[in-house]
């Protein structure tokens, strides 16, 4: 029953020994989790979305717990790409961790600039392009909510970064037609898709009787959104079966990870679950391996999209 399962996976031309990754913004740049497990034991560390300049982010309070979930409005606080590349990436490489760098921008140009800086950096497996950011050139409309802006960001990154580094476009579920956005960014050169970013939400503090978060709205994450993530991954995998998906959204157990994989994810990022359990990635990875073995899968890759098989 329990033969060893080959857990390896690929996203574009990047190979990973296991499909369990951190989620951007939920592992900072990795150092903080290293006390709880060796970072090279998981598939990859996806770093917090970095912008070209240092940023303070949004005012506090930046979080509110909600039933089986939480809202955050961090606002992409970070050191800026130069400090990040100087300090954080080399440290991760030293730990022999596989690194996926997440980038974020306010203009199409900023994404390209970030991509240019990544081009020559060694030790990076892929770049995740977080397009769930307000586009300052388009009334603050989030890039990922507009097919044309999404496409232009990825096009710019693709052209700047050259053909080597896989590009994973991270999409927002807050759209009417997710497969259409997905198709656009794939046409523009994305090698893979990351699904899903947080769902836009709000909590009102019934004592102050105002929005609780400093940034008013925030992103909903955690188990509450898992059914939305599964649906998004299933829909997009059905529409674009050949495009690898890095799935995420509410994964807190090996069962959850398996659900996303069956829906069509080639890899699974674990975000909010690490807040409640710093060793979540390792626990999830072990449980996933056992579940795959119990179902007779010799390789994790056989399970990708298995819920779409004939007769389903």
């Amino acid at each position, binding site marked *: 029953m329990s033969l060893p399962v080959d857990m390896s996976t690929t996203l574009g031309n990047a190979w990973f020994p296991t499909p369990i990754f951190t989620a951007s*913004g*939920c*592992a*900072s740049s990795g*150092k*903080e*989790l*290293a*006390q*709880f497990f*060796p970072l090279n034991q998981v598939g990859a560390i996806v770093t*917090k979305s970095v912008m070209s*300049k*240092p*940023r*303070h*982010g*949004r*005012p*506090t*309070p*930046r*979080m509110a*717990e909600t*039933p*089986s*979930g*939480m809202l*955050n409005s*961090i*606002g992409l*606080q970070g050191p*800026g790409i130069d400090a990040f590349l100087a300090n954080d990436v080399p440290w991760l490489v030293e*730990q022999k961790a596989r690194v996926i760098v997440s980038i974020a921008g306010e203009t199409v140009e900023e994404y390209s600039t970030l991509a240019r800086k990544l081009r020559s950096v060694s030790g990076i497996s892929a770049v995740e392009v977080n397009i769930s950011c307000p586009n300052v050139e388009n009334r603050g409309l989030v890039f990922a909510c507009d097919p044309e802006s999404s496409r232009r960001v990825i096009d710019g990154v693709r052209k700047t970064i050259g053909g080597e580094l896989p590009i994973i476009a991270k999409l927002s579920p807050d759209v009417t037609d997710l497969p259409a956005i997905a198709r656009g960014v794939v046409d523009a050169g994305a090698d893979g898709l990351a699904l899903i970013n947080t769902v836009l939400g709000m909590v009102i503090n019934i004592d102050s009787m105002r929005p609780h978060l*400093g940034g008013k709205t925030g992103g909903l994450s*955690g*188990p509450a959104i898992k059914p939305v993530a599964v649906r998004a991954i299933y829909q997009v995998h059905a529409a674009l079966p050949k495009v690898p998906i890095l799935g995420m959204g509410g994964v*807190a157990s090996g069962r959850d990870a398996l659900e996303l994989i069956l829906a069509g994810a080639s890899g699974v990022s674990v975000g*909010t*679950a*690490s*807040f*409640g*359990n*710093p*060793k979540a990635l390792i626990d999830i990875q072990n449980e996933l391996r056992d579940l795959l073995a119990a179902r007779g899968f010799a390789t994790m890759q056989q399970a990708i999209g298995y819920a779409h098989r004939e007769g389903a």
Partner: protein
Amino acid sequence: MATINKNAVQEMVTILSNKRVGAYHQILLNVGDIVKNCRPGNFVAIRVGGDTSKLILRRAFAISRVSESSQYGGTMELIVAPHGSGSKWLCSQLEGAEIDIVAPLGTAFGIPTEPISALLIGGGYGSAPLFGLADVLKSRGCKVDMLLGASVGSKIYAPMEGKRSVNSLKIYTEDGSMGETGRVTENLLNIVKDRNIDVIYSCGPMAMLSAITALVADTDVIHQCAVEESMACGIGVCMTCVLPVRNEDGSTSMLRSCIDGPVMDGSTVRWDLVGKVPEVSS
């Protein structure tokens, strides 16, 4: 390998006792060797609500005191106010229950190498870590005075044993139901002057910490305060718990109060900017 959260471990531990003390619960945990790395000011992050819980985030509590000599091996004491659903769940756990903790976390109060005069100021359950701190300071030959304040007497936590480790203890309540009527900041500057205080150690509501900082701003007194910001992860990965802190060069950084705190130098915190965003620094 780890440079952050260096001594933190996640473990299932047993509740040895859970007693109501005034408005709080005094909860004693059997934590074994974890105590070896706990310093006054550190905190513990506790999973709440049990297996079917909708509460997905840990709750942070100051480590009130630890003991290695007890009959149970290492024990850790917490003083918990039943506030919302998570802390109420914790307060309802019975002796023998197992709970999931991550500890020790965060920075600790700096302990002077010289026998200085220290003033410890606690607001509400903020007094919890101060008694453990007082023990350590006393053992270093310091003079330790303490001021405790709360809205009402039942929210003053000042255990008998604790009182032994301080040279003086003064209590204030806003309604006058215990000690003097008023706040700990009432007469602070006089106390600091009269007793030649070198360092203030404080723990309590942010408004209290901010007021103390302002009062001692023009003095030579060092103010180490333990801040309390809403925390999602407690281990530095989420960036929710940030506070604006002044850098050497005058610029401001948003520092994580879970790993760069909770104990911070009060004079570096930009209390005026808490809940706001500083100007972009570059």
